[in-house]
């Protein structure tokens, strides 16, 4: 299978290379090469589909002789997870990335017309490069034993339990769809530069850019939801390098959409658009480099370790950066500038400010995420530490220079904690929100201020009301209140535009829906960031209730499922509302770790988040567990276990085992006792097989040996007659209330819905009829403002 799979990959690379070279020959007058380009593109897809089918075959048939199958599946894995396991590891994620890229390539053949050789030449070059990554991280490598010989284990290591849930089926394919599609605007931009077609590429690139942006946004949401709902990380966003590195291309993509729109409506930004389209794809590759080359493995909880791709990834990154920006530099002076509106109160100006805002945020997040890489450059880390050294804040609030030992750290590398992002991004994002409160009402070139002010009445009123509501609900900090007010303002403005525009067709509403979604998201994000309660750890004994954050928690018991998962059965009461919470807790022997799945009760404005921490079984106070030499108490008695005693009795068919104990009553004098049990070999029934020989104690009770373990040298001693209560089982859970989380999910869903509308519209927009006429889309766009 190794041979067959490798041959398929090599064939795919050959087909990709054929397509790239053929397409490159077409502009040189070799028209016939076009067919070879198409054949190569189709053949590459066919090969990759075969690779996927072969991988599926190997996973479903449990071929553990293949290392990848061995590492990511096992016999007890459900069939559909065996399919999903294809993309569980690094080799497979390249497979799915290339698969989507090649599917997009087939559509591009139909949609690009005379741009085809240029766009597909660039695009297939990228796909071929990714196919080479697939060969380097070959998923068909056989499993080898310690001596380097092929070896077929009986069972696989199994899918990582954090991946073993529904989101694993959905999240990676969507993320890689976003990654794959972001290459299309890049290819269009390069084609435009090469052909000196500085405006036409926009039309073709736009639907793809919006689609890539939507998929990336959806993937970010699903990743966050996965972490929040299943993995029990307590939040949906942690500013982890892996998360950030997908956020940066999304932010640049957002800027790209707006810049494309300016140029599409007749204004300038020609050079800017090339630069942003190229940067967006550089960001995708840079993100891949950060998470897959191992450079962040000491800084991120979930990045891949170095696996031999570092050199290749750096090479590709340099190639894409130099190729993209170099082509732009080559044409720079040839691109004629076109004027933008002079007026500040115009969409042109507001778009540009918004684009600056988005790019600045992307730059900060990208810089912060890159800090471990930047500081790893020899000399740079130490220099930066030295330069900033005296200002570094210490944990106690003083600065580093005033500390006892202010020498820079020998290893120059450093990372940034999440507070870097949470202190820099929100103020800047607020500026973007501010732009959105007015921006959608503006004309592209100019605006009648009187009309504008009249339109702003209701949104402004809504903003004031929302800010007041925030104050009433207890918000006191300036930033959250500003966010609630301005987001409501912007949300109302965009709703107003939706109402005004809806008669001209739903397809025109994409942008406004995206804005509404963003505002919902931001309100939710601010609420859940600033006003989530701390995680309260509570201990609930069975049969009692514990009150926290206005909810009464009762513990009903511990249920063990057939698959080994344990469920803490909790009843949560809040007034008349009763909710059964079933957080799961289970030990995964493969990972040697306890996995916890939280229980979440979502209300409109807040989530109750119940994370399981521990189950404490009931404790019978009449017994105690002793190893040799230990001392423990039962009621008034103190026992010390000295060792086992096996008397040399030779009764036929029976054996005695005793425990030598030192016992004292109420702290009095110690005496030695030996409670025994007699094992009878020929007992009539099992109950009589073990005979208890209790010993009388000073307080009038008796002590017996309840059980023993000769291997661990352990006994369990019971005192009879004390009748101490049995301590009930306890559930330990952490509880927190997180406001606004539902708004976060709703916001992303609404935003992605807007993205879908925009894709449909722009894709109709870019289509021409067979006879050369445009598809009749109305010429006036965005609610009757003048366009060119």
């Amino acid at each position, binding site marked *: 299978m190794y041979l067959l799979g490798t041959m398929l990959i090599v064939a795919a690379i050959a087909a990709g290379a054929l397509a790239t070279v053929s397409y490159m020959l077409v502009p040189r007058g070799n028209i016939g090469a076009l067919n070879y380009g198409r054949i190569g593109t189709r053949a590459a897809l066919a090969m990759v589909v075969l690779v996927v089918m072969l991988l599926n075959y190997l996973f479903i048939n449990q071929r553990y002789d293949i290392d990848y199958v061995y590492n990511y599946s096992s016999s007890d894995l459900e069939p559909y997870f065996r399919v999903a396991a294809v993309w569980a590891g690094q080799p497979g994620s390249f497979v799915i990335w290339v698969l989507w890229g090649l599917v997009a390539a087939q559509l591009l053949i139909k949609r690009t017309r005379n741009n085809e050789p240029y766009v597909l030449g660039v695009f297939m070059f990228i796909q071929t490069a990714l196919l080479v990554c697939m060969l380097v991280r070959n998923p068909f490598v056989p499993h080898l034993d310690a001596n380097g010989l092929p070896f077929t284990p009986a069972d696989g290591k199994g899918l990582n339990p954090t991946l073993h849930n529904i989101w694993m089926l959905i999240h990676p394919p969507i993320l890689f769809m976003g990654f794959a599609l972001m290459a299309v605007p890049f290819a269009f931009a390069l084609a435009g530069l090469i052909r000196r077609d500085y405006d036409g590429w926009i039309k073709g690139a736009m639907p793809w850019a919006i689609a890539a942006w939507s998929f990336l946004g959806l993937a970010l949401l699903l990743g966050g939801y996965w972490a929040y709902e299943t993995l029990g990380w307590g939040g949906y966003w942690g500013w982890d390098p892996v998360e950030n590195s997908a956020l940066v291309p999304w932010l640049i993509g957002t800027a790209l959409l707006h810049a494309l729109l300016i140029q599409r409506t007749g204004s300038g930004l020609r050079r800017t658009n090339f630069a942003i389209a190229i940067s967006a794809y550089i960001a995708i590759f840079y993100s891949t480099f950060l998470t897959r080359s191992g450079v962040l493995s000491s800084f991120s909880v979930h990045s891949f370790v170095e696996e031999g791709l570092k050199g290749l990834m750096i090479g590709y990154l340099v190639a894409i950066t130099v190729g993209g920006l170099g082509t732009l530099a080559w044409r720079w002076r040839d691109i004629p500038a076109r004027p933008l509106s002079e007026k500040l109160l115009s969409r042109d100006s507001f778009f540009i400010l918004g684009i600056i805002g988005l790019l600045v945020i992307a730059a900060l997040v990208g810089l912060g995420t890159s800090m471990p890489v930047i500081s790893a450059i020899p000399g740079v880390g130490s220099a930066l530490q030295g330069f900033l050294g005296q200002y570094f804040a210490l944990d106690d609030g003083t600065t580093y220079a005033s500390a006892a030992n202010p020498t820079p750290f020998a*290893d120059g*590398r450093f990372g940034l904690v999440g507070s870097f992002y949470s202190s820099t991004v929100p103020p800047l994002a607020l500026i973007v929100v501010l732009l959105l409160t007015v921006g959608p009402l503006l004309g592209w070139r100019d605006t009648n201020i009187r009309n504008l002010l009249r339109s702003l009445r209701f949104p402004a009123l809504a903003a004031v009301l929302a800010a007041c509501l925030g104050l009433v609900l207890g918000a006191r900090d300036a930033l959250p209140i500003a966010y609630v007010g301005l987001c409501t303002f912007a949300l109302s403005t965009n709703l107003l535009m939706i109402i005004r525009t809806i008669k001209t067709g739903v397809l025109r509403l994409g942008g406004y829906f995206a804005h509404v979604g963003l505002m919902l998201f931001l309100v939710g994000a601010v609420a859940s960031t600033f006003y989530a309660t701390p995680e309260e750890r509570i201990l609930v004994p069975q049969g009692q209730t514990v009150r926290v954050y206005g909810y009464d928690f009762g513990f009903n018991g511990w249920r063990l499922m057939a698959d080994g998962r344990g469920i803490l059965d909790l009843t949560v009461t809040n007034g008349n509302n009763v909710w059964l919470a079933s957080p799961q807790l289970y030990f995964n022997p493969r990972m*040697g770790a306890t996995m916890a799945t939280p229980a979440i009760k979502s209300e409109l404005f807040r989530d109750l988040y119940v994370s399981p921490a521990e189950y404490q079984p009931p404790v019978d106070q009449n017994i105690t567990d002793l190893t040799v030499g230990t001392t423990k108490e039962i009621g008034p008695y103190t026992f010390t276990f000295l060792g086992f005693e096996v008397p040399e009795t030779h009764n036929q068919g029976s054996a005695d085992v005793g425990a030598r104990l030192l016992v004292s009553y109420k702290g009095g004098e110690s005496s030695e006792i030996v409670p025994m049990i007699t094992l009878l070999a020929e007992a009539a029934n099992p109950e009589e097989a073990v005979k208890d020989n209790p010993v009388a104690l000073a307080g009038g009770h008796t002590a017996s040996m309840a059980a023993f373990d000769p291997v661990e040298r352990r006994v369990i001693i019971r005192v009879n007659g004390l009748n101490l209560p049995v301590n009930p089982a306890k559930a330990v859970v952490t509880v927190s209330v997180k406001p606004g989380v539902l708004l976060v999910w709703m916001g992303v869903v609404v935003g992605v819905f807007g993205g879908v509308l925009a894709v449909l519209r722009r894709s109709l927009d870019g289509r021409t009829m067979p006879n050369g006429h445009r598809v009749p889309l109305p010429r006036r766009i965005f609610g009757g403002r003048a366009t060119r």
Partner: protein
Amino acid sequence: MATVSGEVLQRGVRIKPIYLIGIAMIVLAIALGYNGLQQSFRPYTQSINEAINANRSVQLQGFLGSKGAYNQAGKFTFDLQDTTGKMVKVVYSQAKPSNFEQAISIVAIGHYDASQQAFIADELLVKCPSKYQEQANPKG
């Protein structure tokens, strides 16, 4: 509705309000970023002495010096050893990380607490020789 037909933009001659606002945004971003760097800097070190003297949160990389165990307070503890052979006790408030026993190297993120004479870890990154090291993120 004004149009710009026939109007020629004179580049860089007049300072338009949009330029000022744009530059102000960039300056603000630089200021915020600089401030953020000071607050959020977390150095990486492979020396236990440095971590002890740092008086701040660090990322301490080292090797397992002992098997991990839960102490009386229910915290997971183990000894971390650096390349000089020095050991420090690490106390981790979360559950034992997955693949802990197979770790070839461990990065403990946290600070040294002189009163407990231990390194209090908020997060642990366990690096295993296995294919890739994904583990539950303690903080999210």
